[in-house]
């Protein structure tokens, strides 16, 4: 078959095109024809089909996501908002941080190791493309039930993929989550976060200005990997010329990515980059259309110049390939030699494949024939937008009426504590996190199992002026809460991440999110999504933290059964003096233990109901954002004054688990007394609460600070000894807590 050129397309207007096989709807295809005034060529169809896919175009979510902008709180910290590769926030002293979380769920189910590995690789390149040095990663993971067979296949592979790729890149993994629930069987969630650092006057954007500037593709060569499931390959039209089956999951090469990082940083330092874009989903299609659309408007690319790993690739495949470790830069002609010399020093192949034009068209040639001639904005920015129907799930009222009030309360609270502490969701995640390098680059102030990861900034970039500042990051999300009430669930996810950052002494500043849901074509899922976005946008406004970017992952469902709606929220905060960071847990003997915040009987969606009764019903804890903000203010100010010797947020499993984990942090026991009904005091999951420990002489100042901010402050007891003692209720040696806490995952996964 000869190349499907533009002139051929003009001459064969009625040739059937495989738009349906590429996942396009008839109306979408008709719109492409309307835009072009003719049928698209195979290459053009490839570009539109991937750029207008749900993944790239956000066509089902856009109408909701705009609330993140319209409801955004005023924030002077926001330097680059949504719509770029990643958001950028001002963290003071001339420094900026860029961070983003992104899903790689489906590939991680198909091929756990490579799926998860390339998830890390992709988000790291997003951060690099902002002009930043990536400085750390985190992963929010969801798996099926811990004892389910497929979890034994998926979890070890995912962890190994993250471990191999991240460790080999030299990026510390400083936190994240591992949660098990049967609802994720068949649909594991792998949400990877990366944070980078740059000087705030050195932000790079994905633009291609300046006609005559060169378009350089650099990094790995392009191969047949990662050409999507619904690809040209499935279509009859291209079959003869192509290969029968291609792997749909990309294969990662972290060594090449490490070289790319160092190479890009040298390129930035040498100021030889005008615009830059990573190649992720939709590969060359995405990079060329987005760069061109945001630049002068035109670009000419000779696809024959793209270095190929497999010379038999056809243009459609080159355009759709998601081969990893590739970047595209726009470079002034005068800087090309310097650019190439830096790439050569790092052994990174680089090739000029085209140049910027002022024609307003993205034109691509193949063997001298024009195969693409489109207005790039129509592919990059003007994709279809759907206002999908939505309605509350049929069972929602019944679910909310099925409250945990009638569940039998435990007679033996000691046994309940141990049962929860050893349950897969609350057990130690060291089996997972012990496979990640948390120390590389020597800036890790706090890492898992701390409430938030924290990094110092002063030495993160060699030669930059010193600062005392540090950044803290946490990701959180509770699918059970969101299932019971997606609006509140999203707010609770934000509240928890906000709290986790604040307990370390850092002031929460900005938000990223990864919204994991079932099929948007199911109105009940769409309702969950709409509610979650509305909840998160409202909460961001109340808490004064803007959303800087993120990602939507739909179609996480098997048959007609979706996962629990799972908004995962990442919060970034800043601590002015990183030496004043507050470590997690009981850090010494003879310290006063205080509980900040109010407890009421809230068991809907709780770990207790889940573990002990297998129950999910009622309503989640109340999300009181005013209380959350006040608590955050107390924690940040108390840390600034040096009052806190340790802290820990209260979340899943309530006070009981927070006390146990605090003891485990350094092997220090405590004796505390409860004032209310013991079961509720210990296991309720009321939000906006934290445990802190202070030197006895600091207690009054802490109490006064709490009073000033209207945050309840209860003295619970004192640290010391070798057991956790809750007077008149339970006593457990710390070593028994440890054995229970650390035994579970190794027993399950070897």
């Amino acid at each position, binding site marked *: 078959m000869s190349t499907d050129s533009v002139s051929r397309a003009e001459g064969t207007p009625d040739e059937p095109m495989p738009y349906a096989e590429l996942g396009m709807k008839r109306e979408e295809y008709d719109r492409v024809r309307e835009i072009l005034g003719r049928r698209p060529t195979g290459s053009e169809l490839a570009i539109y089909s991937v750029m207008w896919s749900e993944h790239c175009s956000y066509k089902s979510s856009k109408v909701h996501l705009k609330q993140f902008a319209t409801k955004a709180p005023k924030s002077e910290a926001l330097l680059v908002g949504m719509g770029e590769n990643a958001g950028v926030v001002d963290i003071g002293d001339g420094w900026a941080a860029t961070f983003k979380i992104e899903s790689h769920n489906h590939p991680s189910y198909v091929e756990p190791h490579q799926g998860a590995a390339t998830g890390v690789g992709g988000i790291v390149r997003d951060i690099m493309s902002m002009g930043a040095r990536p400085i750390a990663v985190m992963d929010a993971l969801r798996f099926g039930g811990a004892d389910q067979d497929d979890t034994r296949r998926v979890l070890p592979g995912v962890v*190994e993929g993250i471990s191999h790729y991240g460790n*080999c890149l030299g990026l510390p993994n400083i936190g994240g989550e591992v949660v098990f629930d049967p609802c994720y069987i068949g649909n594991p969630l792998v949400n990877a976060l990366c944070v980078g650092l740059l000087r705030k006057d050195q932000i790079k954007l994905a633009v291609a200005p300046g006609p005559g500037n060169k378009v350089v593709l650099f990094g790995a060569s392009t191969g047949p990997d990662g050409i999507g499931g619904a690809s040209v390959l499935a279509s009859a039209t291209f079959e003869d010329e192509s290969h029968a089956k291609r792997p749909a999951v990309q294969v990662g*090469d972290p060594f090449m990515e490490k070289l790319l990082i160092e190479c890009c940083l040298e390129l930035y330092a040498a100021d030889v980059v005008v615009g830059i874009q990573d190649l992720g989903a939709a590969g060359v299609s995405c990079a060329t259309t987005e760069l061109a659309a945001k630049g002068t408007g035109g670009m000419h690319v000779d696809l024959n110049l793209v270095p190929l790993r497999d010379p038999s690739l056809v243009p459609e495949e080159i355009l759709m390939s998601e081969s990893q470790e590739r970047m595209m830069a726009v470079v002034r002609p005068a800087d090309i030699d310097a650019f190439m010399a830096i790439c050569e020093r790092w052994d990174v192949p680089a090739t000029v494949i085209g140049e910027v034009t002022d024609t307003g068209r993205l034109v691509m040639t193949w063997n001298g024939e024009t195969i693409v001639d489109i207005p790039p904005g129509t592919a990059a920015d003007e994709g279809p937008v759907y206002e999908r129907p939505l309605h509350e799930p049929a069972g929602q009222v019944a679910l909310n009426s099925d409250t945990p009030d009638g569940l039998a309360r435990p007679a033996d609270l000691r046994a309940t504590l141990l049962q929860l502490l050893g349950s897969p969701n609350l057990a130690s995640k060291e089996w997972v996190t012990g496979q990640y390098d948390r120390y590389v680059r020597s800036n*890790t102030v706090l890492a898992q199992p701390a409430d938030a990861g924290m990094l110092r900034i002063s030495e993160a970039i060699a030669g930059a002026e010193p600062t005392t500042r540090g950044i803290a990051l946490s990701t959180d999300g509770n699918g059970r809460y969101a299932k019971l009430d997606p609006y509140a669930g999203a707010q609770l996810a934000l509240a928890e991440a906000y709290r986790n950052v604040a307990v370390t002494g850092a002031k929460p500043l900005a938000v990223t999110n990864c919204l994991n849901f079932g099929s948007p074509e199911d109105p009940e899922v769409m309702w969950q999504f709409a509610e979650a976005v509305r909840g998160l946008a409202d909460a961001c406004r109340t808490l004064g933290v803007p959303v800087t970017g993120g990602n939507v992952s739909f179609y996480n469902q098997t048959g007609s059964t979706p996962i629990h709606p799972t908004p995962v929220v990442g919060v970034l905060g800043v601590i002015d003096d990183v030496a004043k960071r507050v470590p997690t847990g009981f850090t010494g003997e003879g310290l006063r233990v205080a509980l900040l915040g109010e407890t009421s009987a809230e068991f809907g969606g709780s770990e207790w109901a889940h573990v002990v009764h297998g129950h999910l019903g009622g309503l989640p804890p109340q999300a009181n954002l005013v209380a959350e903000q006040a608590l955050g203010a107390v924690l940040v100010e108390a840390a600034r004054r040096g009052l806190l010797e340790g802290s820990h947020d209260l979340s899943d499993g309530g006070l009981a688990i927070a006390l146990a984990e605090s003891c485990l942090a350094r092997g220090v026991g405590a004796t505390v007394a409860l004032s209310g009904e013991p079961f509720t005091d210990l296991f309720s999951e009321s939000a906006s609460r934290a445990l802190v420990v202070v030197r006895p002489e600091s207690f009054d100042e802490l109490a006064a600070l709490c009073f000033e901010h209207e945050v309840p402050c209860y003295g619970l007891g004192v640290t010391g000894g070798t057991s956790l003692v809750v007077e008149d209720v339970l006593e457990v040696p710390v070593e028994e807590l440890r054995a229970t806490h650390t035994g579970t995952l190794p027993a399950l996964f070897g």
Partner: protein
Amino acid sequence: MTAARVGVVTFPGTLDDQDAARAVGLVGAQAVPLWHADHDLKGVDAVFLPGGFSYGDYLRCGAISRFAPLMEELIPAARAGLPVLGTCNGFQILCEAHLLPGALTRNASLHYVCRDQRVRIESADTAWTGAFEAGQEIVLPVKHGEGRYVASAETLAELESAGRVVVRYVGGNPNGSMNDIAGIRNEAGNVVGLMPHPEHAVEDLVGAPSTDGLGFFTSILKKLVNA
């Protein structure tokens, strides 16, 4: 007097080079970056081969780095007495270069392991451990997937009898190393290979909850200053 100059080598894929350079600086020595592709040791007084995944470690760890132009300079210099410390991937490279005997293979657990590890200094008679006392127990982080030290029975017997085991794991062997070996030296004691990472245990604020790694850097500084 000019500061002692300690070269820190960067191969493509080296990760802990800036960490090592910082640790060198913390004890008052001067870190000198050395580039894998240069035939130039820049006249340094000692060399630190840091950890990482040089060349991706897709073949055998350290198998390619061993042939880098810089190594062509380093190997004879080390044989002639230049103090060299290789940690993690650096240790692997020293073994591949036959400056140290034995090999580092996949951890017995088959998993990468990152943890704070108790170790015992077995020999204080090297260029890099003089500031410790033999028998002293310290905490250093380990972080590797291929750190299981193996050698022939003959080599092991020789290492043990000659006191060439420098550091040994205690309280649990993280990788299945023979004789719990965490680090060894050459006969002369100028070349030391270590699986643990002293450069990640040098500051209270960051890294492992220990500053025990400083001893390796003060050792070499004292050695060079007194030389």
